[in-house]
């Protein structure tokens, strides 16, 4: 899977590495700012209000 991704990318190894780092940064950004907050709201076991 990841080997296939590596072969799909164009250019010399350092260009591929650069592209992968950019992709990884984008994925992390999406996770930290959108996916994880959403997941946390679903499973998070805390409550701060009395009701």
């Amino acid at each position, binding site marked *: 899977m990841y080997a296939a991704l590596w072969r799909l990318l164009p250019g010399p190894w350092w260009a591929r590495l650069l592209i992968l780092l950019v992709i990884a940064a984008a994925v992390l950004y999406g*996770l930290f*700012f959108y996916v*994880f*907050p959403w*997941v946390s709201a679903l499973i*998070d*076991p805390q409550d*701060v*209000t*009395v009701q």
Partner: protein
Amino acid sequence: MAEESETWGSRRSRREHARASTRRGASFFGVLGELLITAGVLTLLFVAWQLWIGDWIGAAEKNAAGQSITEQWQHEFAASATEPTPAPSATNAPAEPVISPEPKDAQVFGVMYIPRFGADYHVPMAGGVSRPRTLDPIGIGHYPDTPMPGSVGNVALAAHRTTFGKPFNQIAKLHVGDPIVIETKAGWYTYRFRNLEYVKPDAVDVLLPVPQETRVEAKGRYLTMTSCSPMYFKTERIVAYSVFESFTPRADGAPASIKEAS
């Protein structure tokens, strides 16, 4: 010699052949393994986000938001005060607190300062205590139908103690007399911390006009902050009570309590 190189050559070609075959079709278990590793990494990342990374992000966002709100109010005030402002009420009589209208759900109305929690602590406050609309994205929530800061009665607030920037993380470290300052467009309301309490999650009587006193009309001005207890659990709630000290109109500038050394 020749025989040897031949063996070596055939071995290499065999190896290359093997490599080529794995290239052509990644094996089912190979992909499955990579997916499982990915899932494991994602889970660990989520835990790291929940415990640390998300808090750095959330706290930074909230402090920045609080600061920009303050600056905007100060800016608006400076712009509106074209005529010479009435001399700061230097009289001894403390200013009568201005009571803001109750905010709509998720509408930001104030910024909270607690010097005990750090010099750069200024977290936005908004109406409502729903997690998705107020507590997670904005910070501190104001229980609907409780009074606004400065009012007679009990101003009730809630915020996270862990995760999402954890505005009330250090609530258990408050000392008696610590200032808790709420800034609104009108000015600053200084409360003084009095005591902590641990209650059951259904103890709504902490929100009463006089906390936990049914059918008693309030004469004092109180502030009640609720959060989760123990940290990361929801079995109980931690409650911090404070009492009103003074109101400082915006024309007088920020009170000293906002930076009080702790």
